[in-house]
């Protein structure tokens, strides 16, 4: 059984989603537990696979027994093992957390919502584990189309925001497909390892150049890398808050993973960094992404919308760190990928808690939040510290590697952008905390903190948020082990 783990990771959520769709018609109450079981199986399988890969090296799985390059192959090394585990656990935590909020807002569409969520996770897991370029496109579109539908379930502006996401997302995926087409014309294969082997002999080809650029642009559209980010703020802000908790932490990070995978393991580091000569341009775009994201975040008056701009900044960090082209920068980018999944998860789940109890999360509506919802706000503080980069939360450690990489590459623009955005992060979050802390309530005499204004979210929503907040510190303290065990084996030896 365990040798089929790579396939099970995708198949179990897929079948579970169909089951949930059916149950949505027949017996709604079973949707949640069935999905929970499916995700639990997926999460434990991913964890098991990661541990196996850390110990014994990469695992290759041939779907249907067909040999590569004719068949589709699933390959797991520590990089996508890490992403798989992060995606699965993030989805599992969000699933548990979403119980009360979905019951309140989507009771009539339970089957559809949960089924789509499960399909979304299937798409992400499949994208991460596959070793075939076209299979990646298929699973990418599975994830994207379900995301379009999920986002559109929100009120008011959600449908238009989702439609804009449809346009830009489809363009991005089509660019990716076009790039794969060019590669297929030149090499005749779609298997990633095979492509890598054949591309080493084709470095001078104009078609490969174009393929590289088109594929990158497509992926940047999908991950909302400046200046192709226009769809993200509206889409994630207007999505229903249970959905934001699922999509926001995962979609863009998995796309960053795909970019890294294609650059390192299809085109190869030699081609991507030396032959193409794109690093300067990409680095400046990354600097712009970080700076513009920070400035635009400062202009926001709503917590959820502000967080969507923070996502843009984080994507800028990861892309910039990767394209620095040295070991520290790449370590920073990969570590940040892992850390950012959980930082964003904690942030959006905490905001979800706030939206469950409060009428909205624009700043004035957050007055007195610290006394009303101390646990949620506490978790939000932990997340804020992580986003700013305060030890011992995980955000500090990935930022350290990014800064070190910038210093080593002497890219002072990126260094300045990193420091600038950290300082802006302090302002962003402490503005929110000021609103939440400095309430106009009268001071009560000798008050016990459990005053009658206490209206925290239900336990099912608070405990996961607190767990993830604690996890941010745990991830931070274990940075050394994560880097040496998971990240370092993946970075090619050509980078000193």
């Amino acid at each position, binding site marked *: 059984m365990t040798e089929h783990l790579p396939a099970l990771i995708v198949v179990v959520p897929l079948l579970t989603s169909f089951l949930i769709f059916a149950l949505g018609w027949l017996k709604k109450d079973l949707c949640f537990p069935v999905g929970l079981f499916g995700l639990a199986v997926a999460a434990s399988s991913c964890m098991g696979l990661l541990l196996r890969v850390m110990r014994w090296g990469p695992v290759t799985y041939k779907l249907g027994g067909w040999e590569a390059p004719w068949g589709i192959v699933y390959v797991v090394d520590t990089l996508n093992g890490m992403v798989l585990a992060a995606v699965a656990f993030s989805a599992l935590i969000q699933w548990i957390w979403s119980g009360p909020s979905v019951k309140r807002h989507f009771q009539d569409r339970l089957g559809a919502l949960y089924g789509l969520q499960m399909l979304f996770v299937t798409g992400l897991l499949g994208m991460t584990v596959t070793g075939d370029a076209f299979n990646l496109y298929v699973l990418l579109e599975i994830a994207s189309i379900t995301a379009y539908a999920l986002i559109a379930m929100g009120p008011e502006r959600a449908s238009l925001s989702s439609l804009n996401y*449809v346009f830009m997302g489809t363009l991005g995926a089509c660019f990716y497909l076009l790039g794969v087409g060019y590669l*297929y014309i030149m090499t005749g294969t779609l298997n990633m390892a095979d492509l890598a082997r054949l591309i080493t002999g084709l470095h001078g080809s104009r078609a490969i150049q174009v393929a590289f650029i088109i594929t990158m642009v497509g992926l940047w559209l999908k991950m909302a890398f400046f200046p192709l980010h226009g769809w993200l703020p509206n889409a994630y802000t207007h999505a229903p808050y249970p959905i934001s908790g699922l999509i926001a932490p995962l979609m863009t990070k998995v796309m960053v993973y795909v970019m890294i995978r294609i650059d390192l393991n299809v085109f190869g580091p030699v081609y991507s960094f030396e032959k193409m000569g794109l690093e300067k341009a990409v680095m400046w775009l990354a600097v712009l992404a970080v700076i513009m994201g920070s400035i635009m975040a400062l202009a926001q008056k709503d917590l959820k919308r502000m967080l969507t701009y923070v996502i843009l900044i984080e994507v800028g960090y990861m892309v910039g760190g990767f394209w620095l082209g040295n070991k520290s920068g790449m370590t920073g980018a990969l570590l940040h990928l892992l850390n950012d999944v959980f930082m964003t998860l904690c942030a959006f789940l905490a905001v979800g808690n706030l939206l469950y109890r409060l009428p909205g999360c624009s700043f004035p509506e957050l007055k007195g939040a610290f006394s009303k919802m101390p646990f949620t706000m506490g978790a939000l503080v932990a997340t804020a510290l992580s986003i700013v980069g305060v030890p011992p939360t995980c955000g500090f450690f990935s930022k350290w590697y990014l800064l070190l990489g910038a210093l080593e590459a002497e890219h002072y623009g990126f260094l300045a952008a990193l420091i600038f955005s950290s300082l802006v992060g302090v302002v962003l979050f402490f503005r929110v905390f000021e609103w939440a802390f400095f309430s106009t309530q009268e001071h009560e005499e000798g008050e016990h903190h459990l005053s009658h204004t206490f209206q925290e979210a239900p336990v099912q929503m608070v405990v996961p948020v607190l767990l993830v907040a604690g996890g941010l510190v745990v991830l931070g303290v274990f940075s050394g082990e994560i880097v040496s065990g998971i990240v370092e084996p993946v970075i090619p030896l050509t980078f000193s």
Partner: protein
Amino acid sequence: MEDALQLIISKYNYWIYITLMMIGLWGVIAKNNLVKKIVGMSIFQTAIILFFVSMGMKKGATIPILLHGHAAHSSPHAAEYINPLPHVLMLTAIVVAVSTLGVALALAVKVYRRYGTLEEDEILEQIRKS
């Protein structure tokens, strides 16, 4: 002049798909009406599908279907048949394009129900006012 004409005529399939792609892209970006944008997006996707299909063509080759006799006695000569792999891939891509089209149209219906119009500038006006 001769060379340019030679270039266009020999690679006519690529020129067709590039033109279609640009038309589609222009539709998505420049048009105001949501349905026209959706049409543009669909044209864009179709252009790519055509590109893939055309890349399998071979001179003097026939459709990739083996008749009874051949399969039994000898291995087929690959050069006589068009490459079937792109066709297979594009079946999937067509499904994806159709699903995307379906979702986009459903969203357009939802938008129309809410705002009463499909022109993007009018919708943005309404949003700005509320």
